[in-house]
């Protein structure tokens, strides 16, 4: 059980970005986290995996626990070893290493399993197998995203945190990523899925959270979220109420402004 309780995160000693946020990822579950840009999703993931430090951020209050043990004071390497791995936003592959070197690095904390896991990852992403000797920086955006996911899997995590994995992927690949997440999950790995693509995320998640400016504003089972009028309008682009017809972008009104949830 990965739990975040009343977490407050401050950047640069002054910017309060998470304001008392709580979420729970049960073992083996898929949990979706939705929210506008800048809501604090990435910050939450950083807080879980111990990466706040190098962004001059710190946990001001609250805690992150894994099976009851506090995580947020550990170093990133220790957190990875405990089975929490992250796919960072914006790919962050090592551009000047080859594809295979990137993957090997993913297995840094568990070197003996590297060969076996390499085979698994190549089986999941045949494209990567084709390009294994290629310099990763020259891969196209989508190829890089696949590499980033494969790299995180190399650590054999129990909890996988995905920060916008569908970003920049072609529709067919988004579909693949979706299936992949399901498959990873079926093998027993819990997934915390941060997404802009709410349709995809909610279609596979058991539970979903909606974040607004550092707070959880909606916290419901995915099915209920899919039925929520606000979610339908603002995250799925469906007409509120009945029907499942998508609004055409041509019909979007110029004056429409963001509606905020009151908290």
């Amino acid at each position, binding site marked *: 059980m990965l739990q975040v309780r009343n977490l407050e995160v401050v950047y640069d000693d002054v910017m309060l970005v998470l304001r008392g946020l709580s979420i729970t990822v049960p073992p083996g579950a898929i949990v979706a986290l939705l929210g506008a840009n800048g809501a604090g999703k990435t910050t939450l993931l950083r807080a879980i995996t111990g990466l706040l430090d190098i962004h001059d951020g710190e946990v001001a209050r609250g805690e992150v626990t894994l099976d009851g043990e506090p995580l947020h004071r550990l170093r990133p390497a220790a957190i990875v070893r405990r089975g929490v791995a992250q796919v960072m936003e914006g790919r962050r592959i090592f551009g*000047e290493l080859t594809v295979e070197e990137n993957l090997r690095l993913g297995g840094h904390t568990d070197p003996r399993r590297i060969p076996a896991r390499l085979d698994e990852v190549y089986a999941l992403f045949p494209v990567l197998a084709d390009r294994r000797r290629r310099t990763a920086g020259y891969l196209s955006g989508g190829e890089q995203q696949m590499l980033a996911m494969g790299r995180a899997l190399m650590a054999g995590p129990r909890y996988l945190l995905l920060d916008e994995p569908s970003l920049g992927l072609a529709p067919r690949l988004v579909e693949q990523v979706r299936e992949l997440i399901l498959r990873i999950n079926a093998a027993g790995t819990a997934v915390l899925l941060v997404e802009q693509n709410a349709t995809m995320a909610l279609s596979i998640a058991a539970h979903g959270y909606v974040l607004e400016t550092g707070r959880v504003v909606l916290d419901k089972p995915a099915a209920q979220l899919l039925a929520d009028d606000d979610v339908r309008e603002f995250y799925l682009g469906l007409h509120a109420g009945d029907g499942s017809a998508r609004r055409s972008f041509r019909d979007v009104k110029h004056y429409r402004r963001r509606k905020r949830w009151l908290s």
Partner: protein
Amino acid sequence: MTELIESLLRGLGTGSVYALLALGFVIIYKATRVISFAQPAFMLAGVVAVTYLTPAVGFWAAVPLAALGTALLALGVERTAVRPMVGRPAFVVAIITLGVDVAVRVVVNAFIGLDVRHVGDPWGLRTLALGPVEMQQRHLAAVVAAALLVAGLFAFFRFTRTGLAMRAAALDQEAALAHGVSVGAVFAVSWALAGGLAAVAGTFAAAGASVDTALWLIALTALPVIILGGLDSLPGAVIGGLAVGVLQELVATYANDVAWLGGNVSVITPYVLMLVVLLVRPYGLFGTREVERV
């Protein structure tokens, strides 16, 4: 002909010393993307330690001990002055290492004292006759030492995951951290390695000669060498070092006094060579091209 071969051999000897010096720079650069201008000070510290240790424990024990001591010194410096700068622009860190260099060198100079010191190497100025050709033993020793250390380093980078982790940390510290690489440990290892190498390199630079406060200047020759070879390339450092050593020795032998260039031209040949090579290959002979795409 003998003269040519002899000067080539001398060139290989000094070139090996340059290569060892350059390797230290490259290792730090590979792991941290920083050129450590503190290397000259570490080199001097290492040599001076050897000069103090040799009378007590003998040359063969003194060198590893001094290398170890210098590695620890480098580790300490890394911990106090460089670690807090993780994630800062490489150039700021480079200037910090310059500050380190200034400060460390003053302390080391105090240990050099007023006299000239000696590492007490077993080779002195003796030569080895290879047929009609003579080679100085210290040059042979430098070549052998460089070959052994280089082989060891290559093995380290190739067969240990620390090697890969070092390269990854150099490229993207956050991403490396996220995958369980301890960036701090990577930094520490690279600085310690570089410190130890500097001590060994310095010993060979001073073998057959003396140690005085000006010895640190030889470490600066490593700069054109690493650029020539490619900042992040270990083979580049070796080949660059040898190339510079040989060319310098050839120029000293055959073209030192070009009237319109003034005397002692060999002193600037490394820089000229570097300029010429870079005009053709902007990332040196073996440097990794920076990946740039939009």
